[in-house]
């Protein structure tokens, strides 16, 4: 988890030269803050790296594609929820530690995201590195070959091909 934080804090954004003057500082800060993680001062005793991340670091601004993290951990009998994906919830399955996308309201499993917290963080880091290889003016899904290749790579980091559909959606691989 510390490596995730350290590498996220090193991520920088790039802008195409032609649009350098078109972006306000406030607008660029949205991009910069989306990857910056500052310690909260709290230290979680949890062994789960995702719970530690959202407890030990301020994740309110952390956005990776359509994933939004929160410092507010919610839980029910089956899941500990640590983030959202659009309207739905990302939860840690309390029985097997798998990270799953759970439909808001019905609590149906929409798809599995990673075998465990560590693998999910590895996959997310790879997603962020892919995003940051583009300028903010570019659409990361324009190059479908590259997007699909990275989605596959992320699914392997997450634990295998069963996680591929989520990373295709996250990155924008439509084939």
């Amino acid at each position, binding site marked *: 988890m510390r490596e995730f934080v350290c590498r996220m804090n090193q991520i920088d954004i790039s802008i195409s030269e032609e649009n350098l003057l*078109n972006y*306000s500082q406030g607008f660029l800060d949205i991009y910069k803050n989306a990857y910056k993680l500052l310690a909260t001062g709290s230290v979680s005793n949890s062994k789960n790296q995702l719970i530690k991340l959202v407890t030990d670091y301020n994740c309110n601004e952390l956005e990776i594609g359509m994933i939004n993290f929160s410092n507010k951990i919610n839980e029910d009998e089956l899941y500990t929820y640590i983030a959202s994906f659009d309207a739905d919830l990302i939860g840690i399955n309390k029985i097997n530690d798998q990270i799953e996308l759970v439909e808001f309201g019905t609590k149906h499993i929409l798809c599995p995201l990673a075998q465990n917290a560590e693998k999910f963080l590895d996959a997310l880091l790879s997603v962020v590195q892919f995003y940051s290889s583009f300028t903010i003016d570019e659409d990361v899904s324009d190059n479908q070959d590259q997007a699909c290749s990275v989605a596959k790579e992320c699914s392997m980091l997450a634990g295998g091909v069963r996680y591929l559909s989520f990373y295709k959606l996250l990155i924008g691989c439509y084939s």
Partner: protein
Amino acid sequence: MHRSEIVLFLCLLVSCSSDATKELGGNYFLRIEGESTNEILNHEPNKNGIPPAILNYNFNDSFIIAEQKPNKFNDVMHDDSIEYRNGRKALYYWIILKHKNKLVGPMNEVEFKAARNKYKVPDHLVLKSVYY
């Protein structure tokens, strides 16, 4: 005055005095009061919306997008600290991420395009007139 004329007169009177609102989901709504006062608000107090004047907008389950031409002065119903970098005669763009209650804006056209990419606002969600 004929009865039909009275009914027509009453209808006109009612339509002049009442605002039209369109629910946009996520507790947001578009209030159509007149060209310089059309705005997007949230039913909950202390949740920011988009100040007047909204010219074009659209929405889906996840996003509200809007094109705005600001009035001469900031509106008391909205965040008073909003700065319009290109002056008040320029057009500005906004995105509301409904599930996060996050308001992104005011943006210029280049920023709006970049933000659409970042938040994956679908291409088919295009701006349309508030009167459409």
